[in-house]
């Protein structure tokens, strides 16, 4: 499973492959852009006192892709987005590696920051993807929603 083919101005994908961050940056490039923001979510080793070995993500694939598409459409209503990338890796993601990439290019930097933050916050709230922690002591648990 690949990250799919970019449309002319939007690239949305879910795959068990490594996130192609350099390709995403290249895709975001636009001659009318004055700013690009790239957010990369990565697997963290320590959460409080507990040490993570790796994370494993599961998606309800067709709905996750359609929800990401809905977020992309809603973001374009709020900000003058030129190019946009939303990629999520599923399966096992070792520590330090990238699980999610959100990229936006806009004429001015304010919109690039705002749209990116809005997209990652809403992805984490609404896109049906779930994270399972495997700790260094071998225990495994699904991550509970905060608040």
């Amino acid at each position: 499973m690949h990250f799919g083919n970019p449309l002319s101005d939007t690239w949305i994908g879910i795959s068990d492959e490594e996130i192609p961050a350099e390709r995403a940056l290249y895709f975001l490039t636009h001659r009318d852009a004055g700013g690009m923001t790239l957010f990369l979510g990565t697997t963290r080793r320590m959460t409080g006192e507990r040490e993570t070995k790796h994370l494993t993500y599961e998606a309800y694939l067709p709905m996750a892709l359609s929800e990401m598409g809905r977020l992309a459409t809603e973001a374009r209503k709020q900000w003058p987005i030129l190019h946009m990338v939303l990629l999520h890796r599923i399966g096992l993601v070792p520590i330090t590696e990238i699980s999610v990439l959100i990229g936006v290019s806009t004429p001015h930097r304010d919109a690039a920051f705002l749209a990116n933050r809005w997209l990652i916050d809403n992805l984490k709230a609404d896109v049906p993807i779930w994270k399972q922690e495997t700790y260094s002591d071998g225990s495994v648990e699904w991550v509970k929603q905060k608040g």
Partner: protein
Amino acid sequence: MQIQVLLFSVLKDQVGHNELNIMLAEGASGADLLDRLEAEFPPIRSFRPFIRLGVNQSFCAEDVILKANDQVALITPVSGG
């Protein structure tokens, strides 16, 4: 009418299935489906306050009226990112 129920993450583990086929009366709602599921599968009960319904891949409120062959995902709080 038959409804296809999809389970993921913690619900899939606790119920022991990733898919269930449930027969409901015509005109049944999402709440009726959840009532039926929590009666048949006790692990679902403790998650009920947190479950959102994804009916044919769109979020719907519990009062949604289901149709034959609808696909209903039980979406516990998501944790992607």
